[in-house]
């Protein structure tokens, strides 16, 4: 295939240029697929090689995986996975792998060179006890602040997956970072919500009404599903667990996981199965984007629009019900394909709903953007600077609103995306408006994709069967979720289990740059900005406002902040 040779040539030229620069530091080169190559490098050279791949060869950080491979060869392994985006799509994947000796669990931090690695490295410290030497941020990321000091859950010998240490106390002791000044008091209070009902603790540093900086503590709803999957489930069951990562866009995780296992085991799901997966993925995007555009309407005070968008969204839920038997597109995947075919009646019913949805969405979106308030409230607000975006590898409409036409469906085609006509949508405004417009336009692309797939379904089986699993084979799976690229990394294990499964949800890459998006905006815009990354934090629970000049700390209740965002009258920060 034309594109296959081009993509492997792309990968080869990246490998050559890295070999030319780092010579002896490159210890091993292995190919997983024509578009996937892994370079094992000397541990000391890790930051340089990752930085060179990232900034000099068009790399974007897709995920970082830690793996306890001491039982296999005495080391922990680190995998920095990058999407190498030079020239034309499709693009190859490059994994930089380094081994960390079991007796000396530390590695040189990549974050000072590539900021995008910051959360990943904090997580490696928490879950594997691997110390990133030189990482500026020494706080925990995933584990609760009162979790026992030397207990690293994802080490194979650490603990039973059901173990839950007793909480030490009620007090919040996470050190927030913000501008320093004499006598700035900080009193965490709460809990309350900021944009949607999910747990997270936000701290906004303000000067009067203007936000000068922000910090946040998330992972209150970390459930330890990686550990659960490794210990209790077989590889088919994990497809169902993967959907529980999110209540909105869960199916996309299931597909990414299934693709990862399928690639590791050398299985190809039949084309009909991939077409069905693609249809369901786009139905999921429809209802997810309509939800987000609805929330944006609500937050700018346009509640009638919000109600109507939700009414129309119901049509997407009906499509899901017709196609899968549930209001979410869940429970459809097995390794090797899907469990349910699409029949003629179902196809016709979905095509009819699509037509209705299309007409109504077009009309409602026109009404929404015509509301005088809408432009005024969203333009220039919550700017994601293109350079910040380049440094942090954010994904999805969040990134595409800042001028980067990056979309995994095009960059690394999977499913049926290279068989149907569609376009990557991007906008250049870098603001809340741009991100919302990207979603509005993507709704139409999704409608087109679903229609094309339904009309030209490849015939044949929907499930590949009769394959065998090779323990310790590694596979990468990815999807463009409504919120951006999801990446799943899998190492198969013995006994029909996964040895390691590392799902990386899109929003994980979107949180770190959010801090910069807050700066310079007013408190009244904070909910809009958070909602514009369409966060998936399984909801932002607490906001503490710290006035850096008056040295005052104040907690604003969720309802109050939301009211202020909608009405923009009677600031809660005034006495």
């Amino acid at each position: 295939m034309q594109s296959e040779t081009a993509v492997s040539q792309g990968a080869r030229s990246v490998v050559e240029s890295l070999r030319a620069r780092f010579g002896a530091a490159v210890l091993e080169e292995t190919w997983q697929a024509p578009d996937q190559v892994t370079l094992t490098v000397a541990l000391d050279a890790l930051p340089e090689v990752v930085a060179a791949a990232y900034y000099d060869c068009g790399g974007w950080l897709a995920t970082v995986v830690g793996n306890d491979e001491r039982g296999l060869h005495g080391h922990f392994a680190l995998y920095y996975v990058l999407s190498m985006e030079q020239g034309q799509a499709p693009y190859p994947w490059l994994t930089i792998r380094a081994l960390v000796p079991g007796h000396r669990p530390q590695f040189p931090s990549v974050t000072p060179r590539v900021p995008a690695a910051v959360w990943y490295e904090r997580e490696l410290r928490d879950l594997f006890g691997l110390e990133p030497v030189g990482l500026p941020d020494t706080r925990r990321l995933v584990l609760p602040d009162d979790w026992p000091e030397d207990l690293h859950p994802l080490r194979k010998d650490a603990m039973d997956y059901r173990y839950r240490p007793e909480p030490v106390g009620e007090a919040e002791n996470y050190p927030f970072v913000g501008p320093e000044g004499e006598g700035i008091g900080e009193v965490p209070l709460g809990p309350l919500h900021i944009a949607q009902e999910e747990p997270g603790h936000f701290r906004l540093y303000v000067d009067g009404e203007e936000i000068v900086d922000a910090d946040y503590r998330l992972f209150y709803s970390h459930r330890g599903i990686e550990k659960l999957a490794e210990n209790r489930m077989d590889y088919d069951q994990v497809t169902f667990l993967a959907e529980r990562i999110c209540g909105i866009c869960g199916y996309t995780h299931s597909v990414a996981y299934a693709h990862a296992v399928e690639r590791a085991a050398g299985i190809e799901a039949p084309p009909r199965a991939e077409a069905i997966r693609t249809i369901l993925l786009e139905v999921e995007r429809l209802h997810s984007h309509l939800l987000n555009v609805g929330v944006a309407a609500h937050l700018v005070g346009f509640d009638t629009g919000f109600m109507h968008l939700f009414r129309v969204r119901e049509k997407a839920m009906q499509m899901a019900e017709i196609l899968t038997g549930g209001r979410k597109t869940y429970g459809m995947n097995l390794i090797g394909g899907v469990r349910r075919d699409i029949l003629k009646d179902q196809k016709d019913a979905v095509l009819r709903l699509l037509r209705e949805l299309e007409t109504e969405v077009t009309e409602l979106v026109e009404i929404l953007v015509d509301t005088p308030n809408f432009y005024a409230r969203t333009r220039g607000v919550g700017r994601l600077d293109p350079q910040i975006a380049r440094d942090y590898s954010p994904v999805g409409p969040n990134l595409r609103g800042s001028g980067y036409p990056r979309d995994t469906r095009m960059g690394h085609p999977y499913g049926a995306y290279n068989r149907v006509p569609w376009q990557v949508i991007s906008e250049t405004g870098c603001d809340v408006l741009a991100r919302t417009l990207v979603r509005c336009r993507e709704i139409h692309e999704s409608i087109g994709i679903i229609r094309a797939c339904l009309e030209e379904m490849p015939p044949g089986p929907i499930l590949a069967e009769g394959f065998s699993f090779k323990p310790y084979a590694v596979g990468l799976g990815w999807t463009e979720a409504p919120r951006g690229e999801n990446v799943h990394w899998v190492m198969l294990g013995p006994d029909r289990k996964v040895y390691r499964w590392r799902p990386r949800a899109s929003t994980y890459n979107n949180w770190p740059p959010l801090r910069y998006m807050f700066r310079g905006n007013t408190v009244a815009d904070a909910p809009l900005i958070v909602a514009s990354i369409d966060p998936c934090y399984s909801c932002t629970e607490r906001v503490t406002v710290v006035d850096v000049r008056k040295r005052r700390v104040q907690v604003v209740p969720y309802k109050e902040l939301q009211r202020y965002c909608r009405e923009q009258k009677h600031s809660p920060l005034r006495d």
Partner: protein
Amino acid sequence: MLRLLRKVVQTGQVTLPYPFAPVEVAPDFRGKPVYDFSRCLGCGACARACPPQAITVEWSAQRGVVTWSIHYGRCIFCGRCEEVCPTGAIGLSQDFELAATRAEDLVVRAELQMARCPGCGEPFAPARELEYVRASLEAARGAASPVLAARLQLCPRCRRREAAARSGPAGRRQGGGSR
């Protein structure tokens, strides 16, 4: 603004009177799994497939029973149980109204007798599963000889012992190892 008003008027009321009137679900809707005790073998295939462990099967050798149970609070309505059940003893229905005021009301439990091994007297497999295996073998190969039929009733340990006895020096002399 005018367009919006027109839209509002055009749309009219969309809220359904549920729960005062029923709502219709899609023909292939996946709702509450319904269990048919009379068909269940106690084989446990459903429990092994069930991703969230909503279905569990526990053996009590002491009491000689297999306890099958489902916790609807854990069920994700995936239908894997239906897919793997050899007898159709469990299948999804269209019922989605599962709310209960007490957690216990979300659990359905059943006990199945285990067969005792005529060799050692220990219970070793659900009686119905054993019967199902016997009947399937019969359907595939015709009635078993009395020797084979008796062997089927033995627990794995006694069967091994019997096989060892047959293939031992004494057994080989008698040619007991052949079918």
